[in-house]
């Protein structure tokens, strides 16, 4: 499977360096290594969800407990989480660090991913969610750190879009 193990390891190290101790996740192809790394790490709590919106509640609970968390999901999972984001994270000022695999963008071969790819950034903008891209190994850790810092200081959801350039080796 040409999902980049090297990039996944760097992203995972970036999360660890931010003192993330809980990760919620729903499997998707680009996230397989990240989920496995989380599962194999005894210092990390992995919460495997049935639907991504649950992760908003799980992360809010972790925040109340004083534990830093991250959410791993596909952009369609982000779309499925919107009510939780709006009527919990935004309403109650809950920091969320969302790592979203940006499927359906340039280079996508799976027709079923393409519509979600079209609307991901417009929806993030409509919701007023700050976002940037993880698109190169050299900057990935720094951007994770910056996103985590902003989500904590602004007490709001912040998104990192995991791009094909970083996650897929062709």
């Amino acid at each position, binding site marked *: 499977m040409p999902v980049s193990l090297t990039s996944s390891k760097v992203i995972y190290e970036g999360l660890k360096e931010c003192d993330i*101790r809980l990760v919620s996740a729903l499997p998707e192809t680009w996230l397989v290594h990240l989920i496995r790394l989380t599962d194999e790490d005894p210092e990390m709590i992995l919460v*495997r969800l049935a639907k991504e919106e649950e992760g*908003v509640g*799980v992360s809010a*609970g972790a925040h109340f407990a*004083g534990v830093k968390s991250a959410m791993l999901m596909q952009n369609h999972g982000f779309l499925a989480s919107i009510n*939780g984001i709006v009527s919990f994270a935004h*309403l*109650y000022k809950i920091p969320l660090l969302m790592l979203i695999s940006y499927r359906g963008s340039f280079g996508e071969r799976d027709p079923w991913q393409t519509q979600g790819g079209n609307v991901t950034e417009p929806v993030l903008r409509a919701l007023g969610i700050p976002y940037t891209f993880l698109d190169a190994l050299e900057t990935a850790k720094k951007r994770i750190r910056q996103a985590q810092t902003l989500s904590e200081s602004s007490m709001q959801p912040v998104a990192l879009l995991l791009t094909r350039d970083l996650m897929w080796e062709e």
Partner: protein
Amino acid sequence: MLRLDCLRSIYSELESCLVITIMGAVAAELQSLGHRPNFFYLQHAMGLASSTGLGLALCLPEQKVIVFDGDGSLLMNLGGLSTMARYRPKNLVHVVFDNESLLSVGGFPTATGTGTDLDGMARSAGVPRVSTVQSVESFTAAVNNAIHGNELTTIIAKVEAKGPSAFVTDLSLLENRFQFRRHIQSLRRA
């Protein structure tokens, strides 16, 4: 059985727990008995109270967490039941007030009024201890056993579709949220 009587019967036991409620009548009735800093009322985001309790319970395994859910909210997040059961934190108590109705928005019937069995769904999801209670006495006993027990428990409390006259209180959402977190941080330092 009235939900308010149920809440009153266990109110003193809640002092040692972290309490998360859903929106509407449950939040308003618990608050009417007296707000405490260890109570968090999720006044929207239906379905996510149980997920929030799960996150709290997994992060604070020494702390008892109790969620007051409802039939309408649980039906919106049935997948969350399977997630709770998957991790089955020993310190989580999940109470579902089932009034077979979406009381806070006009009293329209939910599917539990036409045969959907939340007790059976919780069991089938894998929740290790599930019970259904019909009287305040059995409710009190079930909740006390769960709080002092050591196993994820879901309690379905069949209550009348009656609630308070008003749902809005003078506690702002953000005040509640910051107070709740500060309370938990003070417990961790103690």
